[in-house]
């Protein structure tokens, strides 16, 4: 009949939940909305929300700066040490906040069990929120850096690439950890310890070229993808006289190792999350 001629036979197959499946637009809307909501809650939940959000890394910065310039004279050998320390802390905070997605899927049980949506939106939204935070905080670094005498330079063009690499690493780990946590609840304490370890293994509070270790160990430390990103950030953005990541690693070819780790993190993270996605609702 003409009135119903336009009706198609059921063509869409329901295949069950997946990591990314279905409407990509909806995935984007969901990720952004979840991130924006969390951001709002954190900042507008209390009158001084944003203030505290910013204070956390600033206080950490204050303590570390005081300790490492007054007692342990680590900073004295580093040009622009306060700027380097602050930017390192904020970059590491981004990594920490983003991988804080470890419990995100479990925390959003109410959504996962009640509604169909691309599951990947959950870890992505956590990383997105960390990125929003970093964007706000970077305004503070910028003012601080300019006030300290850092001048805009060509190296700043590397910022998107470096932040992109950091985001990929963070996202890969966020996917891996959040999916693993659904099954193994000791992933979180393990990851917290690992983060502590990483904080000291990465040149956040010290400069790689100033520490008193053998050349091999120095080179090994430089192969940590976080170290690579922070080192290159320092070289390109803050102080061109500081050694670049390639120099620290012992040659540009060695950068294949940290880059490979980043690629592996995103690939394994995606693979594992994708594999776990259809069953997440059942296993919660």
């Amino acid at each position, binding site marked *: 009949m003409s009135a119903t001629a336009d009706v198609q036979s059921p063509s869409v197959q329901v295949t069950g939940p997946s990591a990314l499946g279905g409407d990509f637009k909806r995935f984007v809307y969901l990720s952004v909305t979840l991130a924006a909501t969390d951001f709002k809650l954190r900042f507008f939940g209390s009158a001084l929300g944003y203030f505290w959000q910013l204070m956390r890394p600033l206080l950490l910065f204050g303590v570390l700066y005081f300790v490492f310039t007054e007692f342990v004279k680590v900073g004295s050998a580093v040009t622009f040490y306060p700027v380097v320390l602050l930017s390192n802390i904020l970059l590491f905070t981004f990594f920490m906040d983003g991988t804080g997605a470890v419990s995100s899927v479990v925390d959003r049980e109410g959504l996962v069990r*009640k509604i169909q949506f691309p599951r990947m939106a959950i870890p992505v939204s956590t990383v997105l929120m960390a990125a929003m935070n970093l964007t706000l905080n970077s305004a503070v670094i910028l003012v601080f850096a300019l006030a300290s005498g850092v001048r805009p330079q060509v190296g700043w063009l590397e910022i998107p690439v470096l932040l992109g690499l950091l985001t990929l690493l963070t996202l890969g780990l966020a996917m891996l950890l959040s999916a693993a946590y659904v099954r193994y609840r000791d992933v979180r304490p*393990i990851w917290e310890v690992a983060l502590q370890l990483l904080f000291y293994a990465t040149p956040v509070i010290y400069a790689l070229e100033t520490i008193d270790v053998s050349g091999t160990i120095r080179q090994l430390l430089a192969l940590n993808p976080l170290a690579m990103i922070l080192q290159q950030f320092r070289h390109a953005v803050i102080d061109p006289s500081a050694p670049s990541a390639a120099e620290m690693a012992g040659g540009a070819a060695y950068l294949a190792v940290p880059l490979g780790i980043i690629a592996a993190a995103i690939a394994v993270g995606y693979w594992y999350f994708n594999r776990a996605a259809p069953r997440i609702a059942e296993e919660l």
Partner: protein
Amino acid sequence: MRPSRSAAPAVVCEGVSKTFRTPHERRHTLKERVLHPWHRSGYTRFEALKDVSFRIDRGEFFGIVGRNGSGKSTLLKILAGIYRADSGEIRMSGRLSTFIELGVGFNGELAARDNVLINGIMLGLPPREALQRFDQIIEFAELEDFVDLKLKNYSTGMQVRLAFSVMVHVDADILLIDEVLAVGDAAFQQKCFDVFHRLRDEGKTMLFVTHDMGAVARFCDRAMLLENGEQRLIGEPERVGQHYLELNFGRDSTAVGQAAETAESQGDAIVERFGSRGAEILDAWFEDEDGRRTPHISQGAGCTFRMHVRFKTSVARPNFSVVVENEEHTPLFATSSWDCGVETRAQEPGDECVFSVSFTMLFRPGRIWATPWLVEGESNDVLDRRPRMCSAIVSAVHDSGGVVNIPHTAEYTRLTASAVPIAKS
């Protein structure tokens, strides 16, 4: 000519099964996994759904009933794409929205606008549309005065109203609903019912899972009874409801299931199918004024009842009849081909024909049932009688309360004071 079915099905579910495996001792940590890598604990298999198949036409309201643990919520979650079926196939046409819980994503710390946005996006609305509809949503929920209040300061009833309002403003073609009707005060419930009537007028397809047989009888065109993951019965809401109640009140469930099948195949004198089957009523349905097969007819509009018959034996003088009843089994209207003076020819085996009765729908809002039957005119032998074979929902803006709303006129004449003799003493 027999009119074609109104549309391709909206939902097709074929042979869907789902088994949950619950480990005897659940390993929740990596440590245990690492310490006992080869230690395998046994699994308990729980078959939540066994080979469930059905198809739902476009515009149909389909109820899924069953006791706790019968698998109805699992089925809904599989249809919604929250769980993955182990086997079987599900196909849908149209935009799907799931309401397993009201207010998914609501956050008490946020005001109404943010929550409407979040919930709307969760249910599949693009953010811009969610914001565009915000005023309508708030108006429908009657929360205009509380827009800026944080959700945690809303009463439970207000939260439910807001959530329900978002739900009805999400444009979906197929709605999956899990017992959300039992909320709100009486006035709000009435509003919900109005919405359901509106949705059916708009041709939406709805699947809804519930314990409430009243709601099923009121809204659903068909219903399915699940028990222990198996589908026991698909059919008229009333019959399904009957079996559901029997299941609930402790009768041996398999016996009930068998009884249902027996009733289906053999016939039970009054309630079930009856007749020599010298001819079979294959199908019966209502159509609206435009000749569309529909279960929904507006009061005052024209409609047609049709039955499709196939003859298995020679019948010299077939007489086609129909009785229309309301929900209380009161016959409202009956007629037959003979009563109307319609000439019916002698029929040979294999002949098929359609008998139609057109009338103006004057009955009160609610469900009406049609019992088609076919008699050999000479002998008065019943060839086939199928009680309450099909039904339709009559909708109207206003229910006057009478069984039939006969076309009428009314007049009001004001009498002047002088014309009214007032007795004074």
